[in-house]
């Protein structure tokens, strides 16, 4: 057994013991696993590396904190429940179309920002009350928005995992729209229809509407939606007109949205709201800090390279398995960077743009997977499901089908490339 494998096993064992035996938060368990890995590797207690790793996801952490505050505020003003109410009321007669539109709606922020977490924290939070009120189980609702977040992260115009892979192989972000549409929308539609058939039973619209909070549109009018419109407009402007728009950054955009929410709807207590939001965001932020440390130690000790080389060492006949391993890196960005880049070279001879798009899809599913299970943890918080592994389990079929789409895209990369070139 290689020494790197011993290090990895010791880290995973400490993580598992922390979570399952000592019931520690996942973030704390990841930190302890990182310290253990460094000790086993003979690095002692590398304080600088642990601190540096914890900053790996600083921007994501700030986005989560500010997005959580924003969503709590628009929930308190009544905007969230009003949108849910009218969405169901207008589309309840066509439940399949309703679920598909909800899935696209959840994907939307990810398409603009390239961030899967943005989907769950914004549009995902908007649709959760409606889906629960329609009688869908918590785990199914959580699973649907988590999967939609994965597809949103991949769908064009912005796909950061593809950009990371492209950056690693000096491939400009040109010509990806078609491949990314193929990688994201067909599995998204399949997932939506699957959840519709399996989990969404016939419902009585009056009973559902009764379960939802009363809409407050009549009371406050259009201004109720101004904070949401402003945030979407600022995000869109930053993406579409970077030359004209002063760079604000996503966290500042959410804070601007939060500040404009005062007086647009129901009153709320800002201090309590802030405390509550940050308390909710804290476990996920801690996970990201822990993941950063974990990845830093994996790299420092050579385990990251060991995993990447092990994937390459799979026999030629099963080289596609290396792509299947990608989600198990537990992070879309880590998978895209560590194994996505070498795999583009492994599949040289096939259309590289299609291959990179497919690999990005495989990598994006990493955000669902443990140890961090980031999207499942978020979704669990949104739907009130304390055991986020139930959400992961409920996503199994959708993950399998999405993975199959990714592998088929790689296998038929040249044919797909020719097909896209017809347009």
């Amino acid at each position: 057994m290689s020494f790197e494998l011993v290090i990895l096993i010791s880290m995973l064992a400490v993580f598992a013991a922390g979570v399952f035996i000592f019931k520690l938060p996942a973030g704390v368990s990841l930190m302890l696993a990182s310290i253990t890995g460094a000790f086993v590797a003979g690095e002692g207690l590398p304080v600088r590396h642990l601190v540096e790793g914890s900053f790996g996801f600083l921007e994501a952490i700030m986005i989560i904190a500010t997005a959580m505050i924003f969503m709590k505020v628009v929930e308190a003003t009544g905007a969230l429940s009003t949108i849910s109410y009218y969405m169901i009321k207008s589309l309840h007669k066509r439940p399949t179309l309703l679920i598909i539109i909800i899935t696209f709606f959840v994907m939307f922020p990810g398409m603009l920002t390239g961030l899967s977490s943005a989907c769950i924290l914004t549009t995902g939070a908007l649709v959760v009350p409606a889906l629960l009120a329609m009688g869908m189980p918590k785990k199914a609702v959580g699973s649907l928005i988590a999967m939609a977040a994965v597809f949103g992260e991949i769908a064009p115009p912005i796909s950061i995992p593809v950009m990371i892979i492209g950056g690693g192989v000096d491939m400009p972000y040109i010509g990806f729209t078609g491949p990314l549409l193929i990688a994201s929308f067909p599995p998204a539609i399949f997932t939506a229809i699957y959840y519709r058939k399996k989990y969404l039973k016939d419902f009585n619209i009056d009973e559902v509407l009764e379960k939802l909070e009363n809409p407050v549109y009549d009371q406050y009018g259009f201004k109720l939606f101004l904070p949401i419109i402003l945030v979407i407009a600022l995000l869109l402007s930053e993406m579409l007109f970077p030359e004209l728009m002063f760079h604000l950054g996503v966290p500042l955009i959410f804070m601007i949205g939060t500040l404009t929410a005062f007086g647009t709807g129901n009153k709320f207590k800002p201090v309590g709201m802030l405390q509550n939001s940050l308390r909710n965001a804290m476990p996920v932020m801690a996970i990201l800090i822990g993941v950063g440390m974990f990845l830093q130690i994996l790299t420092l000790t050579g385990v990251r390279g060991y995993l990447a080389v092990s994937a390459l060492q799979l026999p030629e006949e099963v080289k596609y398995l290396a792509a299947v391993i990608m989600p198990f890196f537990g992070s879309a960005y880590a998978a895209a960077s560590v194994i996505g880049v070498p795999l583009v070279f492994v599949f040289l001879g096939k259309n590289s743009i299609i291959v990179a798009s497919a690999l990005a899809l495989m990598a994006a599913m990493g955000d669902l997977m443990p140890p961090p299970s980031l999207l499942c943890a978020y979704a669990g918080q949104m739907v009130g499901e304390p055991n986020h592994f139930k959400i992961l389990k409920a996503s199994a079929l959708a993950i399998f089908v999405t993975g199959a789409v990714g592998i088929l895209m790689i296998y038929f990369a040249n044919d797909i490339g020719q097909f896209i070139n017809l347009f």
Partner: protein
Amino acid sequence: MKIDHKIVASFLLFLMTVVCIVSGVEFLDMRTPDVIYPSEDLTKIGKLSDYFEELKDGSGDTDIYFFEGKEPGATVLLLCGTHPNEASGFIAGVLATENVKIKAGRLLIIPQACLSGFSCTDPMEGYPQSYTLESKSGERKFRFGSRVSNPLDQWPDPLVYSHFPSGQKLSGFETRNLNRSYPGRPDGTFTEKVGYAIVQLIKKEKIDLAFDLHEAAPEIPIINAIIYHEKSEDIGLNAILNLEFRDLRYAPERSPENFHGLSHREWGDNTDVYPFLMETCNPIQGRLRGRTNSELILTGKSPQYLAAQETGKLRIEYDAEGVPLDKRVARHLQGFLEIVNSYNEFFPEKTILLEGLPEYEDLLENGLSNYLK
């Protein structure tokens, strides 16, 4: 037993204070400048802010070493340290600065083009902060930095980086990458301002021939390559042929016309210079590398690359001997010298005559320590 939460909070606060102090001392150590001892032929040391005032005294205001020959001739720019995690480029610049003698023309050396990036390392890469080399005066420590500018100088990154003026989209991280920022702009980001200043330098000093020294991971196809703008093609191919005669293989790579922001593209498009970018093989940058430490910078030995090579699935230029730093520096310097010679052949009326720089074989035989003061 239930412990008072105030005691727990106080303990954690104390623990975090200790962590901040211990790591803070290490992080601050990266702000100690590297020391370079220029050769006797040094004419003056300029600053990048001489070409764009706004950079003055800031973390982008890097040193420029001027060497001017008695005879007139061509002006050459040797730009190193664009990516501070690519050690051979920086050390080649240090070695050239400490050894070069000039008879005709002018040589400008910037050893640390992205000075800001030398003050930090990249999170989650597990990089060492420095490495030590033997020299004539004993051990010398050099910083090993980040691929990009320090986020303390430019933050936050956008989600997507839109290159000016092409509008080309890259991941947000690349917004701090100097070699994606050219031609830069005076009212842009910190990194774009540094890129702008370098382009102004090329224009104002009327640089004829310019080099940008880099390294790349063993699995990247453009390693051990000379990348040239289309207008530099004849000079580059002639030099590559001469290098072949010495049994040194450099892959010729023409700069892609639709990939913007890079020195070999934008310097060529926006100035009169003949630009070249050279890459050596650097395992510590690779995604397949094993344990990450300063030893890996110096020896370039990573058994995992051998294992990856044996799979036959990647085109990896690597052997069991590794790719030691002195070999990588020697390749850069020999490539530089051959391109300068080739330029002199094409422009005999405006040559640059350099001495004092070791040939490839000499550097391998004598080692870096004999050329570092």
